[in-house]
């Protein structure tokens, strides 16, 4: 018997929103863990990338919102490259960040960086960091 699970049946509005912003279904993932094996940032993460998806599948997005994982993700796309199910986990991480940034969460204060450091860093670093960590308005 084929059983199809969709967010409509077991998800909640916040998970539906994450899926919509990410343009990904979290239910595609079958928890093989390849993404976490490939991810270069796991030592600094407090939740593995595949666990992020698992919590979302279970409707426990609160756990994901408490995790540092989406904020440690560097959008390097290794997870997407190795996923046998074609899940773009980098997009899910971005959606989790984006929805919080839109509510005004501020993850870094670029203005606190020492001026000497600012003189050294490439522009793309500051611009991409502000895109990833600073609220939109």
């Amino acid at each position, binding site marked *: 018997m084929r059983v199809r699970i969709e967010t409509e049946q077991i998800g909640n509005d916040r998970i539906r929103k994450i899926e*919509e*912003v*990410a*343009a990904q279904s979290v239910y595609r993932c079958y928890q093989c863990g390849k993404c976490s094996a490939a991810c*270069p*940032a796991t*030592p*600094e993460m407090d939740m593995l990338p595949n666990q992020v998806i698992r919590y979302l599948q279970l409707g426990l997005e609160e756990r994901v919102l408490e995790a540092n994982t989406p*904020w*440690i993700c*560097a*959008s*390097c*796309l*290794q997870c*997407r*490259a190795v996923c046998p199910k074609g899940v*773009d986990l*980098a*997009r899910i*991480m*971005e*959606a989790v960040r*984006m929805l919080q940034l839109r509510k005004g969460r501020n*993850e*870094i204060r*670029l203005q606190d*960086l020492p001026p000497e450091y600012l003189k*050294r*860093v*490439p*522009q*793309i*670093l*500051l*611009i*991409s*960091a502000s*895109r*990833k*960590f600073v609220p939109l308005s």
Partner: protein
Amino acid sequence: MNLTYFPGCTLYTKAKAFDEAAKRAGERLGFTLEEMPYWTCCGATFPLAEDYDMALASPTRVLARARKASDKLVTLCAVCHNVLKRTNHVMQTNPERRAKVTDFIDEDYAGDLAVLHYLEVLRDEVGFDALAEKVARALEGLKVAPFYGCLLLRPKAEMQMDDPDRPRIFEDLLTALGAEPVDYPMKSECCGAFQVVHSDAMATRCSREIIGSARARGADLVVTACPLCQFNLDDRQAEMAKADKGFRGVPVLYFTELLAVALGEGLDLLSAERHAVDPVPVLQALGDEAA
């Protein structure tokens, strides 16, 4: 041959030698990089949120303006290249988003510009065999670790440049220059990117693993196409040395710097760049063939 070129913000400020070396090497290879008119910042990240159309405005504006000058746009910075190529892919495959963004910026753009990386110009237009014949100072005996990083080749279907799992474009270039490309497992890993301002620990560890892996395979130099990778891999070495007394540094260069030197440019070209680990001693050992 004149090629329309997008330098991007970083190449105008912190990565001047990357840009200058690319232009000089181009002249020696028979093409001129001509800066496109009225360019702006590309946005420095491709928006991974599907509903964030606003972030497509600036890269689309760049594409639309470049299209007025040519049907091909050459990029150099791996970040700009990734953003512009991925945005172009959206323009080509999603007419709804294209209409929304082009209406908003009030520019016509049909997605009919080809975005090329400078490396693709070397491989597909100049040809590595023809390039090899122009080498004035062969990088004989030099072991060079190519660093691709995250953005140059991924995602494969959109970047369409090389196989991210078994890339060879850098290796083939290095071989044409007479150098020995170093094969090492970390070449397409992440240097920590923008995380260096957020999780310094993550960026330093990632960079240390990459540098350590290249070093263990005997690399004299690391080359990259990304100002963010160049910064992290080079700048973080001071931290690595603090944590490990036996640490030996490896210079990290832009590939165009090495290319221009091999084609006969003097080493003074490298002084336009901030190199935390000085590459000059390694290159001086090649002898001075500047022509």
